[in-house]
């Protein structure tokens, strides 16, 4: 039961079908990677799971520990334990990181219970130290004027503070140089554990040198066309995606 299950998922944007019968099971405690060419539907899968209003699910289901989440608003899904690290995190002018994460943590408390500010900041600063994020960041507006690496570190910081049961990382490596990639990856690895299932979406094998997956899936034309262990990523890197498509 402790699984994030995607069952025969079909989704479109406007009239255009993007996901065409996708099946995938991510048990808690495992890290799965999805690789695929641009346009294969990887990012759409991430957004559909999180509940982005631009996409319509035409059939299939997504179950979080057995419970269907497709009818739920994005915030309800998030509070159930689903986290999406965005490929392009939004800038929110005038809202500080500290207040933003605080609102997210507060939203998980029972009605009427107030977040204890001292404890919150102690935890926030500890997580920031782990991710080498300077303290001054707390008073900056969310993602505003951030470098690519700072945005991705901020995503991982949010994940660390919210402790999701399932995390979907959408192209977390895009726009990162090798140093930033190492910092972000070690932040993600620190969150691995028996209580967390992760889905790492990436175009390049490089990220998987640092976040080593238990399973690797290849996506094409809106479905999973091949699954294997971490060596599959190396083979894709060496031989390209056409090999998979030709095989099918």
């Amino acid at each position, binding site marked *: 039961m402790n699984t994030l299950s995607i069952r025969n998922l079909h989704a479109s944007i406007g009239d255009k079908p993007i996901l065409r019968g996708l099946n995938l099971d991510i048990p808690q405690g495992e890290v799965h990677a999805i690789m695929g060419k641009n346009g294969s539907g990887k990012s759409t899968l991430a957004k559909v799971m999180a*509940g982005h209003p631009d996409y319509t699910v035409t059939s299939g289901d997504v179950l979080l520990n057995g419970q269907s989440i497709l009818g739920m608003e994005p*915030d309800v899904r998030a*509070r159930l334990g689903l986290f999406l690290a965005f490929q392009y995190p*939004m*800038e*929110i002018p*005038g*809202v500080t990181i500290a207040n933003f994460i605080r609102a*997210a943590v507060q*939203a998980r408390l029972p009605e009427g219970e107030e977040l204890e500010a001292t404890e919150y900041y102690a935890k926030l600063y500890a997580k920031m130290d782990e991710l080498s994020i300077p303290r001054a960041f707390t008073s900056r507006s969310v993602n505003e004027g951030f470098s690519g690496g700072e945005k991705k570190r901020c995503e991982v910081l949010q994940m660390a503070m919210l402790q999701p049961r399932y995390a979907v990382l959408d192209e977390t490596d895009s726009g990162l140089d090798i140093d930033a990639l190492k910092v972000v990856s070690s932040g993600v690895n620190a969150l691995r554990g028996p209580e967390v299932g992760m889905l790492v979406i990436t175009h390049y094998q490089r990220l998987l040198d640092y976040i080593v997956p238990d399973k690797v899936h290849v996506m094409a034309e809106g479905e999973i066309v091949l699954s294997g262990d971490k060596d599959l990523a190396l083979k894709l890197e060496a031989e390209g995606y056409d090999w998979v498509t030709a095989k099918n």
Partner: protein
Amino acid sequence: MNIVSQHQISSDLPAWFSEQQKQAWTEFQSVPQPTRHDELWRFSNLKILDLARWHLASAPADVDALLARSRGLSDLAAKLVFANDRLILREIKNLPEGVLLLPLEEAARDHEALFERYFMKHPTLLGSAKIAALHRAQLKTGAFLYVPAGVKVEKPIELWHWSEGDHIAIFPHTLVVCEEGSSASVIDHFFSMNNEASFVAGVNDLIVKADAHLKYIAVQNWSRETTAFHLNTTGVGKNAVATSLQLNLGGRYIRTESNSRLLEEGARSVMLSINPMDADREVDQRTFQDHLAPSATSDLLYHNALDDRSRSVFSGLIKVGTAAHETDAYQKVRNLMLSDEAEANSMPGLEILADRVRCSHGATSGELNQDELFYMMARGIPPQKAAKLIVRGFFETVLRRLEEPSLEKYFGHLLDRRLALG
């Protein structure tokens, strides 16, 4: 007796001042009412000019309760509290020598030459000359702050103007003079004691001489039944900086007129406004950035968030006079539309008569950014809370322009309370 038919002159005021008040009363009676054909009243709600409903205020009933609620910043230089145009508290904690902070009647009596030199010297150009004349005629008291040359008042000075009573009218007045090289911060509070209908005709005039720095913040939180005019002129001298913020939290119908004059080379005027609006509230703002000298800067930033059936009007003119070469003048009004029934009217204007000028002006209207909303919801924040946070952030970007963290924090708390953000 209403404020249109009864003219009452306070016996506390010196004869020279009363004489001016009589003239102002005559002027009030002779100036015609604006009409909807008047450009400065375009899109305005003319019902607010129905003045016969309002009566002169009697003394406040519960002074203790008013004082108990006159609490702003914890660390202050001084505080004056007025209620129904009467001084009810004068608290001087830490004012440097030579600084005058006086009720207007004392200033007119004991510092006649000084006070007379600055009192309502500039005409009201943005539509409410009749209201300004009424204000001058019916004035009883107000705040006069004089900061001598070179004196820096480190901590803020707080002024409070309360209204208490149904269908009363009050005439709050604030005059600030910062002499050469001086500096001060003034927070002017405009609050209603109860949810009663009232009328306010307020004037604030700011004179900022060469190299002086003044921050002036008007926090308006009138009752939901209040009609208020706040008429401002600001004069900025050589290399001086005037920063003013209007934080309009309350009121039913609010009209502000802000006339900022860049009088000498290198003068800088920052004009800010934050307007959270809901229900059927209306905020009508008229501004004039009047560049009279070279190499000066004016920078206007107004942010309105409009919910329910609220309505905003903005009309602003940047005028760069023939001598005002190398001017930098900016004007930006942003309307965040939170409801289909809300209405924003913006009329930016520009008139350039000099060379080598950098000007920009513009008004934008937009809805909540759906991608920002989704991002916040994807973190578990419920949509209503997320929307409030986005609105709060929209206002915070204006507050940051105060460049004074302790003030940003104080006004931030007031906005949190206004938006019911915990």
